[in-house]
């Protein structure tokens, strides 16, 4: 979903235009003090996206090239993807780069490589992509690289491709940092003591592995009195409710549950409601509408680590722009995360999506 047309007033993200003038950067309001905990795919230290920029002159120069870009997503059906695509589109627009295709791999590598092949028919100069599976999509990305396309990856590069040679850079959210944020909020809400469950993504997916690892490591190392008594895997976000119900059946005195992202967290919420576990503490990652609403209204979701996908998109576009100008770019760039709780939920929304929170969330926050 490109989000170009606003079909309903409140429930969705609007495409946000960037400032028409001035240098292109990610949101300057993002605190530059925030430490980035994630390491790059090859153990590189992160280069903070805050430091990326394109000046007006550089932008003008890129515009002359009349470049074309394609966005090859792993999936487009969530707020995260939508925001990132919006960020990319907005930044590319300022750079005068035409976005010729946005594809959705529907979490299937075979679909994604078909997408790559198809998109190549339109001979883009840039492909920004999140590989569904680093291993099995590698050959196709390699082909694209060999065809001279500049590649920027989200989160993780395909296996066997080298930064600087085959691709430009990887831009990720601070997933590790977000897992830590969720752990810290959990610990704070429980007063450092209690029994909790973890709902993880039972699929080998780099980003989600990082989050769970961060959450579990933080709890184990910093909060010895909090015990992880239950772990349950999901493969589809719709499974969150069933898994959470099972956990609550087995451990009906559970104090908290961490869910790998916001959609399964909503399932946990439904399970807690059904079983009457009102004081269950839920933390998660990603700021979605429903999670924000629950946080704002003082519900069970107490906090989450938010990614800044819109800015991640801008960072990716800037990197592509720099490469088009012949500049060297850092191989691993991270966008800081944001710890969201009831206190800062409205501000956080503004920061993440560059627009005020939906009305429902606002009225709940009052």
């Amino acid at each position, binding site marked *: 979903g490109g989000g170009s047309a606003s079909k309903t007033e*409140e429930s969705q993200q609007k495409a946000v235009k960037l400032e028409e003038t001035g240098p292109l950067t990610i949101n300057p309001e993002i605190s530059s003090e925030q430490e980035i905990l994630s390491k790059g795919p090859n153990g590189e230290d992160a280069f903070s996206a805050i430091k990326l920029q394109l000046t007006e002159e550089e932008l003008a120069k890129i515009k002359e090239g009349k470049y074309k870009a394609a966005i090859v997503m792993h999936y487009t059906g969530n707020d995260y993807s*939508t925001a990132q695509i919006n960020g990319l589109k907005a930044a590319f627009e300022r750079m005068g780069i035409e976005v010729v295709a946005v594809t959705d791999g529907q979490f299937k590598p075979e679909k994604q490589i078909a997408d790559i092949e198809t998109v190549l028919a339109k001979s883009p100069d840039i492909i920004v992509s999140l590989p569904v599976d680093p291993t099995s999509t590698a050959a196709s990305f390699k082909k694209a690289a060999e065809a001279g396309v500049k590649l920027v990856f989200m989160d993780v590069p395909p296996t066997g491709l080298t930064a600087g040679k085959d691709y430009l850079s990887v831009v990720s959210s601070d997933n590790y940092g977000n897992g830590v944020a969720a752990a810290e909020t959990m610990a704070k809400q429980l007063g450092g003591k209690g029994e909790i469950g973890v709902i993880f993504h039972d699929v080998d997916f780099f980003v989600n592995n990082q989050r769970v690892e961060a959450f579990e490591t933080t709890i184990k190392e910093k909060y010895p009195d909090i015990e992880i008594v239950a772990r*349950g895997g999901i493969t589809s976000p719709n499974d969150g*409710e069933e898994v959470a119900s099972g956990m609550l*059946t087995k451990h009906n005195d559970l104090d908290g549950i961490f869910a790998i992202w916001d959609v399964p967290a*909503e399932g946990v919420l*439904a399970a807690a409601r*059904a079983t009457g576990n009102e004081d269950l503490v839920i933390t998660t990652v990603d700021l979605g509408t429903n999670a924000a609403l629950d946080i704002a209204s003082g519900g069970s979701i107490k906090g989450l680590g938010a990614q800044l996908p819109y800015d991640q998109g801008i960072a990716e576009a800037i990197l592509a722009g720099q490469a088009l100008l012949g500049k060297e770019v850092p191989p691993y760039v991270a966008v800081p995360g944001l710890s969201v709780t009831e206190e800062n939920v409205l501000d956080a929304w503004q920061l993440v999506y560059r627009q005020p929170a939906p009305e429902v969330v606002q009225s709940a926050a009052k």
Partner: protein
Amino acid sequence: MQSKDSNLNGTVAVGSHTVSRKKTFDWRNYIVYLAFIGVIIYFSVTLHDQGFVSTDNLLNIIRQTAMISLMGLAMTFVISTGEIDLSVGSIAALSSLTAALTIQAGFGMVGGVAVGLGTGLLVGLVNGLLVTKLAIPSFLVTLGTMGTVAGLAMWITDTAPVPIVDATFNFVFGSGDIGPIPILLIWTVVATIIAHFLLRKTSFGRQTLATGGNESAARFSGVKTQRIKLLVFLGSGFMAGFAGLLYAGRMHAGRFTFGEGDELSVIAAVILGGTSLFGGVGTVIGTVIGSLMIGTINNGLIIMGLDVSQQMMIKGLIIILAVAFGKKAIKR
């Protein structure tokens, strides 16, 4: 999948053995019931100290299977006519969204319910008309509408979920309990009773079975088979819309992913229950038991603490075993 040769093999599918019913109790007609009881007993024994048998957990199973059961009831009619409806899951998604949007726009619960159900009816109508008027195989028609409706559900809010803050709606459609009884249980029971009588005791039900049993013979006998087919698709759309409301009420939101993949679960519940994919033989109670059995297996395996991969393997095996068990000797 053959049953044109019903004349020789003697036995027709599970669930409707009028033949021997009178004479001897043939337990093979009750495979799904037996299998269900077996599953319950097994989990009760192995998981009794892990909360499986707690009322809460059993009610959870009901809650989790309500949507599949309700869609299954209507699907029983569709399959009984020899047709199929693959669009139910996507209808549930779309109607959860249209209902949520309507409520959000200030038309209140009644407006939301009307629009949600109307969405289902509308898609059902399209399915029914395409199947009856243009004589396109229902597999293709509903595969087409499944895609179209799923796309529409994604597009209508650009994949964003739509929160529902109407507490009454959320109570009545999914989250509420009346005393200790979840409202979803009430919906399931009421709908099952109605569907059961509709299929077994009304002309409509009889004509549905006749249409599936042999369409041209039914037509000669004065059954308006096209109208019956139209009606079963309408019913299926309606119930899918209703399931969408329940998803919405339970999750306090509408979302385009609700019901994803439900079509297979629903069809599985129906077939497991003893309804024949070739039409002519249908059982409403069997469907609900089939749905509950799938739900119970899901629940038990999760409580057992198995990996998703292990859960999938075991679930697959149980489905096969449940039917194989006792079927050995009979051919359909």
